[in-house]
């Protein structure tokens, strides 16, 4: 379990990093290393060069503004989780991050790295999609913003070009009258979920105006399903609506039937919790 040989570069400017990345087809970006290093050690990946971005300036921010939370490429899961401001602006961040691995891994792993790693079993790619956020990427060719809906191409595959570095993820804040909730079932505390479900619900008074549910580990990409119609219909079955777009698979920890069952159990629960959350926030907004 030792990596194959690779060249190692630790640039101190973004320009240098981008140039190196553009110049070496087999190069890979190294952020927190919590996904990449195990792949190297098991020789499941053998990049010719690692470009370590940990010495780059100005990428460690967790910045909260009117419109939402901006997380820099070097902000660790633990830092995002610890930010009370971020939790205030977008409560789903903290709800989901507390399920991402264990404290030691969260101390190193980056939220942006997790998103561009595009693991369907990871919480944050789904959260970004559910919140309709985006990722800013740069390359020698320039800078662009990729909306979450266009970010995930396939299993462990993002739409970043080889020469692009993700510099920031943007999570929109939670609007008044909106609520979120997250639940997951994992075999052990901190493991990747067997099934994880988050809900984002918008309300207007008692009425639910929009309801969407995001899923972890139920398909090979992060999936978000709009279940507004099913929620608004008194006889509606949001889980069934969602399952029509999901593809639960069997692995050594769970059968497809069990995953399907967990979707049926968790989806209504998180929808109810998110609806309550939305109403309680609406209530709070009115109270003062």
């Amino acid at each position: 379990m030792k990596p194959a040989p690779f060249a190692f570069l630790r640039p101190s400017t973004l320009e240098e990093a981008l140039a190196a990345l553009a110049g070496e087809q087999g190069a890979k970006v190294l952020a927190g290393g919590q996904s990449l290093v195990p792949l190297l050690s098991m020789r499941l990946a053998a990049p010719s060069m690692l470009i370590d971005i940990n010495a780059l300036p100005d990428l460690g921010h967790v910045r909260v503004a009117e419109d939402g939370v901006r997380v820099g490429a070097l902000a660790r899961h633990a830092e995002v989780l610890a930010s009370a401001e971020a939790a205030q602006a977008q409560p789903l961040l903290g709800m989901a991050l507390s399920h991402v691995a264990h404290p030691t891994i969260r101390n190193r792993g980056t939220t942006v790295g997790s998103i561009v790693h595009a693991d369907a079993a990871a919480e944050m790619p789904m959260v970004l999609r559910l919140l309709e956020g985006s990722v800013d990427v740069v390359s020698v060719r320039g800078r662009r913003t990729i909306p979450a809906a266009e970010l995930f191409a396939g299993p462990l595959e993002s739409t970043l070009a080889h020469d692009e570095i993700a510099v920031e993820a943007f999570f929109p804040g939670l609007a008044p009258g909106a609520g979120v909730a997250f639940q997951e079932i994992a075999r052990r505390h901190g493991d990747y979920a067997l099934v994880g479900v988050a809900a984002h619900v918008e309300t207007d008074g008692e009425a639910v105006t929009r309801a969407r549910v995001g899923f972890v580990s139920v398909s090979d990409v992060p999936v978000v399903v709009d279940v507004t119609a099913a929620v608004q219909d008194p006889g509606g079955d949001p889980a069934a609506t969602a399952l029509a777009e999901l593809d639960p698979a069997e692995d050594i920890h769970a059968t497809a039937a069990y995953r399907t069952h967990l979707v049926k159990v968790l989806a209504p629960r998180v929808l109810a919790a998110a609806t309550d959350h939305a109403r309680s926030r609406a209530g709070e907004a009115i109270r003062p």
Partner: protein
Amino acid sequence: MTTKMFGAKVARVEDQRFLRGQGRYVDDLLTDDPRLLHSAVLRSPHAHARIVDIDVSDVLDVEGVVAVWTWDDLTGPMAEPLPLLIPHPSLTHGRTQYALAKDEVNYVGEAIAFVVAVDRYVAEDAVARIRVDYEFLKPVVGIAAARAAATAVHDDVPDNVGARMEQENGDARAAIATAPHTLTLDLDVERSACTPMEGRGTVARWDPDTSRLTVWSSTQTSTGVRGCVAAKLGLDLAKVDVVTPDVGGGFGVKINHPWPEELLVPLAAMTLGRPVKFTEDRREHFISSAHERAQQHHVEVGFDDDGRLLGLNVEFWHDHGAYTPYGLIVPIITSTQLLGPYKPANYRVVFESLYTNTVIVTPYRGAGRPQGCFVMERTMDAIAAYLGKDRTEVRATNFIQPDEFPYEHGLVFQDGRELTYDSGDYPASLVKLKELVGWDEFEDFRAEMAAQGRKVGIGLACYVEGTGVGPYEGAHVHVETSGKVKVATGLTTQGQGHQTAFAQIVADTLGVRFEDVEITTGDTRKMPYAVGTFASRAAVMSGSAIHLAALRAKEKALRIAAEALEASEDDLEIADGVVTVRGTDASIDLGTVAVLSNPLRYAFDEASKAATQFSVGDPGKPPVAEDDEPGLEGKDFYSPPRSTFANGMHAVIVETDPDTAEIKILKYAVVHDCGNLINPMIVEGQIHGGVAQGVGGALYERMAYDESGQLLNASFMDFLMPYATEVPTRIDIDHLETPSPLNPLGIKGAGEAGVIPSAAVFAAAIEDAEGFPIMSMPISPSELFDLRLAHADEPHPTEATPGI
């Protein structure tokens, strides 16, 4: 007198070192030696294949590679198969692998080539360049495939059966045929493994000037490794030293020896004239060390209206993997220890030990007992359910009673000796357990939970464990002139706290301060005669030997002190390292006694002047009497007639989530009887660790082999060893101390106990919560969900079929 140390909750002195990261494990050794070389092994990626050709020509081109070995390069005993450590007449078709595969590979992970290089990175690069042509054979994976025998693992082993063994006491089948009630059960336990934190590892250094080989290995038997290394490399035993430094856990897997690397590393060190190291990585540990547990049982039982066992007939199939280096120990233990604390009037057991194209099977903490306990306790529960009786009542009906010891089962145990229990008080243990877990109040609790829409269940399981198997252990106790006491025993330490527990024994027996006692284990230079640390034997075997050796040292100290103090030995007592004439001020410290014990010509310090030729002795006699030896020392061995049998009972209350099928532990209770307790804190630590490992085995861990023999979960990502968050935060423990009459300290082993009843106790509790039988372990939420679906339409499902 000093406070008695035996029985005291003395904090483990080794923990400071371990918890501060100051342990020294094999991989920490020789790291500053610039000549140290590292190794890596090419392992078979296929479960069953013939090796057509191995091409290593590209390997030596890799910069930093020093040497490469395949079977073709091995000579003499090294080219022969590895030893079959424990032969048995029933093991008619025993097979062992070669240090490097010859012609055929029989499991994914089997060693094929050995590369030595300047570091492990280069060694792995080189391994990747070895090209092997394989001719694929169909793999045999799992017990069903082995029994079907459509393919043979070894061409010359018919039906994949390595051994068939039968034992019977009475006539079980006849008893069942005439019994008022009968039941049949089919039960399954899956593969798991020890997975210690530290994997296997070996370092060897050859000194060409003295022709001496030193081997450091992460093993549970340094003497065993020494014997094998000397034999395989053709060295005189006296030229080989094996030292076991700190070991990061064994749990059984490191008792198997010699591993291929344990021979290849010394071979390379001798050939290359440079020290060589092998440090196993985690994936290697999963696919090339050893597993255990997989068995299938078919039980037929006949009983009366009280649930009394009239006849028990058990047939089982044991998956021993690709080879049988450790003989039949595991299935023999299952077949005998299955009986637990019960006395069926007639018992027959027959097993087949089967070859599969998977990793070898050797003892894992519990060593076949968890399976046996699972089978017996499931049977007890099935009988109780059938008769509508309380589960504890059926057990109590079948207990061996306290006045029936020694109790002979009429069977032969794993050590080739009669299965005779020495002592125990099972009824008393059961009373304690029921109280500890709240057995009689449980139905109220169940109702209370049901009112909240919650499902709970309770289960219990009892076991008896043969501990402290022979043949022997020895000890050497040496009182230095400083008064410090150096003790050596040959078995090894893998975290059990031997420094603490053994020092407690010496402190009491010899009358010295606990802090003055230093224990050395697992170093063949200090104690070349030893067996090893397994089968919960260290306290019983080495503890007893140390006690006996300390007694000898004490005898000698009293004799010399009596002379010096001009008193009778009977009037002397030793406390805190000082010999005193009882009731007087006259005293001499043990250091001075040590000085006097060793007549000297040369004084090397102030104290030793007292022992020089013009100071002591009768000039008319030899300075050392004919039947005496110089030095204040004691050496002795302990060899028991047979194992001593510890016992215990566990109970658990679980909650099963009605929606998600998740399984939560609400309460875990243990009543434990390992005879006299040397150190209750260490024993409870062993129980905690065992229970944690048992929770893993019952609810999380399994070896997920696919049909082609690939292990799909060969990492801690997917092999779900429980975290601190998955094990009970609290384990209620009560002790019973029924001394063993077989050893001078009245002790029994405690190392494996915690893990033995877990599969049984969790199956019982989940069954109780769910209302349908649990016949296969481990169980995951996904499997519980499947069972719920399968039993959804049955009002009173039962898997134990009435009749036979």
